[in-house]
C-alpha cells in the first residue's frame, strides 16, 4: 500500500512538471494574436455579461485573441492560483471580473497589464491610486451605477416619495459602497434612505417585511443576493403598491419598475476598447483613467407599470424601452 501512494505522488509530480513545462511561455501563433487570461470570480449573470461583452468587443475591434477563461467558483484561493497561472503562462493581458479577482491579479503581477470590470470602487479597493491616474499596471471599468440619475426617478414618478428602502448583502463590499453613496446623495434629492442588511438569501422575505411599512418606495442596488431574489422583491413591492427603481436592466426583467442604468455587457465592451489601447496602441494602464459606464438606458417593465396603475404616457417613460 505504501508503494501505491508513492506511485500516486510520483505520477502527480510528473504531471505537474509536464504541464508546468509545456505551458511555459505561451507563444503567439502570429504577431497579432494576443493571449488574454480572463479571471472571473464566480458564476453570475452580471459577471457573465461583463465577460461576453469583453469577448465580443474584442472581436468587433478586430483584435485576434486566444482567450483563456477561468472561473474561481466564488473561492478566493482559486483566484490566486488562476492569477498566478496566467502570470506563469505569460499572457499579454489579464481581464479580472469582480473585486477579489482584480485584487488577486494585482497581487500576482505588477508587470502584466490587468483590466478589471464589475468593481464598484477601484480606489477604495486599492486597485488604482486614483480614478484619473491609476498608476501601476491595473485599470478598468467601474460598475458604479449612475445612482443620481436613478434616484431622481423617484421624485419624477411621484413627488410624495420620501423614504426609500434599500436591501443589501452585508458580505459584498460593492453593496456597502452603493448604500453609503445613496445615503450621501439622497438628501440633495429630498429623499431619505432606509437600509436593511442581510447576509443570507433566506433573510430577504423577513427584511422586506421589516421595511415595507416604513418606506414609500424601494431601490434595488447592484448586489448579487438581491439580484438572485429580484422577483421576490418586485412582487412584494407590487403587492404593497410601491414604486421600485433598479440599478441594472436585469432587475427590470425580474419585475422592478424602471431603471436608468448600465449594462454589464456594454461595460465589457467598453473594457475591450481599453484593451485595444493597451495591446494595440501600446499605452500603459497607469495612463488610462478608470471609466464608468458611458451609456445608460432607461428601461421599464410594462406589466409592473400596469399593476401599479401608473400612467404610461408619463414623461419618464418616453424614449424608454420596455420589457413585457
Amino acid at each position, binding site marked *: 500500500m505504501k508503494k501505491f501512494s508513492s506511485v500516486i505522488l510520483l505520477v502527480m509530480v510528473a*504531471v505537474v512538471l509536464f504541464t508546468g513545462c509545456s505551458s511555459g511561455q505561451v507563444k503567439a501563433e502570429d504577431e497579432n494574436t494576443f493571449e488574454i487570461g480572463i479571471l472571473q470570480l464566480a458564476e453570475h449573470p452580471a459577471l457573465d455579461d461583463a465577460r461576453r461583452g469583453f469577448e465580443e468587443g474584442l472581436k468587433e475591434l478586430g483584435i485576434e485573441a486566444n482567450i483563456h477563461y*477561468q472561473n474561481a467558483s466564488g473561492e478566493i484561493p482559486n483566484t490566486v*492560483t488562476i492569477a498566478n497561472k496566467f502570470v506563469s503562462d505569460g499572457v499579454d493581458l489579464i481581464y479580472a471580473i469582480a473585486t477579489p479577482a482584480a485584487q488577486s491579479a494585482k497581487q500576482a503581477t505588477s508587470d502584466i497589464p490587468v483590466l478589471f470590470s464589475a468593481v464598484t470602487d477601484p480606489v477604495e479597493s486599492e486597485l488604482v491610486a486614483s480614478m484619473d491616474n491609476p498608476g501601476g499596471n491595473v485599470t478598468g471599468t467601474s460598475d458604479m451605477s449612475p445612482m443620481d440619475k436613478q434616484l431622481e426617478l423617484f421624485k419624477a414618478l411621484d413627488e410624495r416619495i420620501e423614504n426609500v428602502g434599500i436591501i443589501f448583502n452585508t458580505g459584498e463590499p460593492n453593496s456597502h459602497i452603493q448604500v453609503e453613496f445613496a445615503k450621501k446623495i439622497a438628501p440633495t434629492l429630498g429623499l431619505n434612505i432606509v437600509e436593511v442588511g442581510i447576509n443570507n438569501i433566506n433573510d430577504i422575505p423577513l427584511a422586506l417585511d421589516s421595511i415595507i411599512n416604513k418606506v414609500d418606495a424601494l431601490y434595488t442596488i447592484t448586489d448579487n443576493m438581491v439580484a438572485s431574489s429580484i422577483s421576490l422583491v418586485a412582487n412584494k413591492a407590487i403587492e404593497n403598491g410601491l414604486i421600485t427603481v433598479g440599478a441594472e436592466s436585469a432587475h427590470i426583467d425580474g419585475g422592478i419598475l424602471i431603471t436608468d442604468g448600465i449594462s454589464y455587457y456594454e461595460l465589457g465592451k467598453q473594457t475591450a476598447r481599453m484593451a485595444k489601447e493597451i495591446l494595440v496602441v501600446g499605452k500603459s494602464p497607469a495612463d488610462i483613467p478608470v471609466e464608468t459606464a458611458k451609456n445608460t438606458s432607461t428601461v421599464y417593465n410594462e406589466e409592473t407599470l400596469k399593476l401599479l396603475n401608473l400612467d404610461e404616457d408619463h414623461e419618464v417613460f418616453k424614449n424608454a424601452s420596455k420589457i413585457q
Partner: protein
Amino acid sequence: MKLLLTSVEQGLIFGILAMGVFITYKILDMADLSVEGTFPFGAFLFAKFISLGINPILSTLLACLFGSLAGLLTTLLFTQLKIRPILAGILTMTILYSVNLKINGRSNIPLFDYDSVFDLGSTLLVLIIIALLVKVLLDLFLKTETGYLLIATGDNEALVKSLGENCNKYKLIGLMIANGLVALSGALMAQHQGFVDITMGASIIVVALASIIIGDTIKKKSSLLKSTTRVIIGAIIYKIIGGIAIDLGLNPDDLKAVNAFIVIAFIAYNNVALDLFKFNGKGGGVKNVTNTQPVQELQQRY
C-alpha cells in the same frame, strides 16, 4: 512553475488550518464548524493590527491569540448554555460574521500598502518555517500531560474523569488552540493574497477536512506524532491537485466538482484499499500486536 509554487504555498497555509481542525475533528472527535468564521476572523484581526501600525509578525501573532477566543466562545456556548457542540460552532461562526464586519467597518480590506511577514524572505521559506514551527510546537504539546489528556478526552471521557480531571477543561484548551491555528492561517492567507474579504471563509472546512483525509492515506503508521506532518502534506497535495485541475484548463464549471472528486477518491482509497480507518479501533488479540520492543529501547526513546 509559479503555479506549483503558489499551490505549495497555499498548501502550507492550509496545512496550518488543517492542523487546527485536526485537533477538534480527529483528536477531540468534535465537529467545530466555526472555522468558516474564525479563518476570516484571523484575517480581519490582522488587518486591524497592521493598520494600527503594529509590525506584521506581531500582528500575525496577535491575530492568532485573539482568534483563539472563538474557541472560548464555542466552549462557553456548549458548557454554560448546554448547546450541542456542533450547533455551538455554527453559532460562533454566525456571530463572527458580524464581528468581522465590525472590526474594520468594511467587508473588503486591501493590504497592498502594508508590510507582511513575507517581506522577511522568500514566501515559500517563511511559510515552511512557520508551518514547521507550528507543527513542532503542536507535537511537543501533544507529548505533555495536558496534551495527552486532550487526546484522552476525545478517546474516552470516562478515563479523564477517573483521573480526577474535568473534560470540559480540555475541550476548551483544544478548541482554543484549534481556533488560534485557524485564525493564524487566515492571517497568513490575507497577507499572501494581499487583501481581506468577508467571503474568505467559504468552503474552508472542506479544504481542512480534505487535507486531513488525504493525509490519512499517506504512510498509515498510527503514531500521533506523525499525524501533524501528514496533515500538512495532505493540504499540499490537495492544493497541488487543484492547481493541476486549473492548469489543465478544465471547464471552470467543473472545478468544484473536481475538487470534490479528489476528496471522494481518497476516501474510497482509504476505505476500500486500506480497511476502514477508525481512530478508536476494535482490533483484538495478541496476534495483532506487532511491536515487541524491549524495555531498554523504550527507555532510550523516551
